């Protein structure tokens, strides 16, 4: 992790334009960064200057906020204000910010509880801290940060990230470390494959940097996050966390295996629970990505049903559902995973001669949960500890997902005006809620659902919207340039927002965003803050997911279209199904 972080700090804002990029006024990109700096490191004069110049700066009052770590309360308020004032300028793409709300929540629900407040922050701060320096070119701020915080941040963010993807982590009994790792690896692979999900849409694409619009949004996010982080720091004793955090960081797996590294692949294979057959014809450009013969993993995992005994059934079930694509969407997956963990914790009983803290950490490899477990006081009885953990999970779901969605919806709805034509791509749970909520408020607008083969997730969204009485238009992505003329606003969901501002979403999102840009239509990306990640990614090629190539050669409901049947084995044909 460390090396990456440093690299990030080095990264220049200009780098953002690698990959798909839309011509953004250069001044902006430069101007943005300073804002970020400020909250963390208020003093640097040059940055403030820049800040003032920055066009979007007006919306971000938080800039002026004093160094975070110390005054959490002030921070909160300011942060809220900063984010809440909707800009008069319709162009601002906003990623709604959860963090302030979260803080609120934390304080509301658990006034006395250190643990709780600690937790929510801990997961976030990573994003903030790291994102700040990385995304917005201020190396300074990073350096100046109290070491404890920066460390923490890194660790924490990693955790968050890991929880989601690694998802199907398991409780195991008495397995060696290697085995555990194997499982983890396998699960991840499984998930990746299954993830039909859009989680990772084309990354480069995802750069929804639609000109000016996105930038403001980015700016808002980080700043708010920062607030969070600072609060956390303040509320929690830095000293306590530091040590464990560091350890954890070391544990954090490499973010992504490069699949063209043969020795590594071999090793990973040995550890894997799920047998994976590599596809034969792989597209050269994506050779470093895992691509497996489709359809071999699920049966294989299924037959192992009873052999993976130590795994809790609920966890196994979630893994299966991931693999088979029964659960789609980042939020749903995350919730499903945490609920499985909750089940697992509920059924857990500490084996004799072991302590819960040690034993359970070994079995659950969600970084978020490990963190929580590690922080449990030793004196806690088993049942208390379990209920605390379960509460933590509930709280995570409620604060990071549900509440953040509510906040996003609340804010985004203000951007919808009567007579608008809103376009959305794929099926994003947040966007759906926004649309439904706006409809409930009695706003009159029309929705264009843009979909793409082969998943056709938009159809499900469409069905639900139509049932609620919204007037919708449905089209596929190839018609997006025609339909864009009518559209007045584009709402997009995201799988992740990286620290350099890159938005990660289902493949095709970038096309939609860029077409919108070409037509001067504002694009709003809705992403919960728990999806923020410190990683920096410059294009969609370095990390992506490849789906089943057969899926693109078949047309749903038209079985007579089979021109590509059997072509999979042709030497000179490579099918690419980016997800």
């Amino acid at each position, binding site marked *: 992790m460390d090396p990456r972080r440093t690299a990030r700090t080095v990264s220049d804002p200009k780098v953002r334009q690698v990959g798909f990029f839309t011509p953004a006024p250069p001044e902006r990109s430069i101007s943005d960064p300073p804002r970020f700096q400020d909250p963390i490191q208020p003093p640097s004069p040059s940055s403030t200057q820049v800040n003032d110049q920055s066009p979007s700066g007006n919306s971000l009052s938080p800039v002026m906020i004093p160094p975070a770590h110390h005054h959490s309360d002030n921070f909160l308020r300011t942060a809220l204000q900063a984010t809440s004032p909707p800009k008069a300028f319709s162009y601002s793409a906003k990623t709604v910010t959860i963090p302030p709300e979260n803080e609120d929540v934390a304080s509301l629900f658990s006034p006395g509880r250190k643990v709780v407040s600690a937790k929510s922050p801990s997961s976030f701060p990573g994003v903030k801290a790291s994102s700040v320096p990385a995304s917005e070119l201020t190396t300074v701020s990073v350096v100046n940060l109290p070491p404890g915080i920066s460390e923490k941040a890194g660790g924490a963010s990693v955790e968050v990230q890991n929880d989601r993807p690694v998802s199907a982590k398991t409780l195991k009994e008495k397995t060696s470390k290697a085995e555990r790792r194997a499982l983890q690896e396998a699960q991840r692979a499984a998930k990746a494959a299954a993830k039909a999900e859009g989680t990772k849409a084309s990354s480069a694409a995802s750069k929804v940097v639609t000109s000016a619009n996105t930038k403001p949004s980015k700016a808002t996010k980080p700043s708010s996050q920062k607030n969070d982080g600072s609060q956390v720091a303040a509320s929690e004793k830095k000293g306590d966390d530091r040590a464990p955090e560091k350890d954890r960081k070391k544990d954090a797996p490499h973010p992504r295996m490069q699949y063209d590294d043969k020795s590594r692949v071999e090793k990973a294979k040995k550890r894997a629970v799920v047998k994976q057959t590599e596809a034969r014809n792989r597209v050269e450009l994506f050779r470093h990505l895992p691509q497996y013969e489709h359809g071999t993993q699920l049966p294989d995992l*299924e037959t192992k049903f009873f052999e993976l005994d130590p795994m809790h059934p609920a966890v196994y079930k979630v893994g299966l559902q991931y693999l088979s694509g*029964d659960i789609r969407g980042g939020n749903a997956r995350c919730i499903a995973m945490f609920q499985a963990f909750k089940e697992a914790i509920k059924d857990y009983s500490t084996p004799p001669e072991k302590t819960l803290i040690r034993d359970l950490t070994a079995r659950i490899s969600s970084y978020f949960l490990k963190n929580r477990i590690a922080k449990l006081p030793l004196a806690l009885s088993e049942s208390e500890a379990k209920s605390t953990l379960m509460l933590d999970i509930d709280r995570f779901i*409620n604060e990071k997902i549900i509440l953040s969605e509510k906040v996003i919806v609340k804010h985004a709805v203000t951007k919808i005006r009567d007579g608008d034509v809103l376009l959305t791509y794929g099926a994003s749970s947040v966007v759906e809620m926004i649309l439904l909520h706006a409809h409930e408020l009695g706003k009159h607008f029309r929705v264009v659902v843009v979909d793409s083969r082969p998943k056709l997730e938009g159809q499900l969204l469409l069905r639900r919207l139509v*049932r609620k009485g919204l007037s919708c238009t449905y089209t596929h992505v190839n018609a997006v340039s025609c339909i864009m003329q009518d559209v007045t606003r584009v709402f997009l969901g995201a799988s992740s927002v990286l620290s350099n501002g890159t938005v990660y979403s289902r493949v095709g999102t970038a096309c939609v965003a860029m077409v919108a840009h070409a037509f001067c239509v504002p694009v709003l990306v809705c992403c919960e803050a728990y999806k923020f990640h410190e990683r920096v990614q410059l294009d969609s090629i370095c990390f992506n997911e490849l789906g089943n190539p057969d899926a693109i050669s078949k047309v749903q409901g038209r079985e007579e279209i089979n021109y590509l049947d059997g072509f999979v084995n042709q030497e000179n044909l490579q099918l690419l199904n980016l997800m």
Partner: protein
Amino acid sequence: MDFQVVVLAGGNSKSLTPLVSKDVPKPLLPVANHPVLYYVLHQLEESNLKNLIVVVEGEDAGLLVGAWISGTFVDRLHVEIAAVPEDIGTAGALRAISHYLTAKDILAVSGDLVSDVSPGAVAATHRRHDAVVTATLCSVPISGSSELGSSGGKDKTKKPGRYNIIGLDPRKQFLVHIATGAEVEKDTRLQKHLLHAVGQMEIRSDLMDAHMYAFKRSVLQEVLDRKDTFQSLKQDVVPYLVQSQLKSQAVLSGIPQAEEDGNKKVSFPNNQVMVSQILANASTPSFHELYSMDPDGFAQTRKTHKCCAYIASSSSYCVRLNSIQAFMDINRDVTGEADHLLSDNVIGPSPKLGTKTTVGPHCMLGEGSEMGDKCQVKRSVIGRHCRIGSHVKVVNSVVMNHVTIGDGCIIQGSVICSNVQLQERVVLKDCQVGAGFVVTAGSEYKGESLARKEK
């Protein structure tokens, strides 16, 4: 994994007389020198399922089976034997042991199943869909293999029109209709609302119910309690569950659970709804969910449950030993194409063969068997400690243990049970000879069933 396995071993089977007797209950009927129950237990053991309940019909049979299991699987499996009265059917057997069932899901396997379908796969499918029942379907074996194994005309399988009709939804995940055997004779009824909900149904008659079911325990027990006339899982319970899947009254473990959850966190009732909604929206709704929703709203108004099907791949082997024909087929297959079912070696140690005796491929000779000169054995299974004289021809037959065959016998397509004595120059074609029977010298039989009269 919170699964309990119940092996329904059965007891006496009328369709298998005279092979099955009091001394050799159906579970112990040797198939390629292993009792048929061995195949199921072996399969389960391979899948790491070590805690089993074996239900046997009849006290005596229970003792015999118990003795065999404890001898064979000692230290390998933890098996509990339950003896139930005869003729109460599979559903009755489950009802009888219902109070032993505690796990969340029950895997019920028929004891006469010889297959390599992984129980884990069935269980996984069951879990994945959170189904009430998951039935394992496999393609019907091509029983046209009559070139050889045309055994006795008394086979019930030979009755025309005995096949299954199975309706699947377009994605082949759910059972929409299932009708078996006798019911199908004239016409079969489909429910309109079911068809309407599914939209499209695929009717298959080339699938066979393998008698490996995964049930949700709460539902199974409720159905068994409420419908005490139900005798058979296959003919009563499963069709009932399939038919009522859109208006399930039973069931509904899903709904109370949700309520419990809601109560726990009174503080965020709203959030709970949102969570479930996010989850619901995340997956492609099955026709159950679509049906259960109001036409305009999200509220679930109708209760449904899911009946899943696990369709074994066509390459897997799956046959039930429920007829003499099947018995012959399985014997042939296990020694031949499906020999991976047996872990141990096919040829026992050091059978004594006379001069010029030939044993063809796909044969199995048990240990301690002796053969005289100039014998021919083709595609047959010969048990332990058999003594076979000279000039004997055994083709397409099954000879069990401790059989004595005199010189010059010719045996084709027959089953010779244990302790049978065939005197000289007996000619048997397509016969079944019950245990302990003595066939007098020089007699010829064709297509008959020979057994000692029960005293």
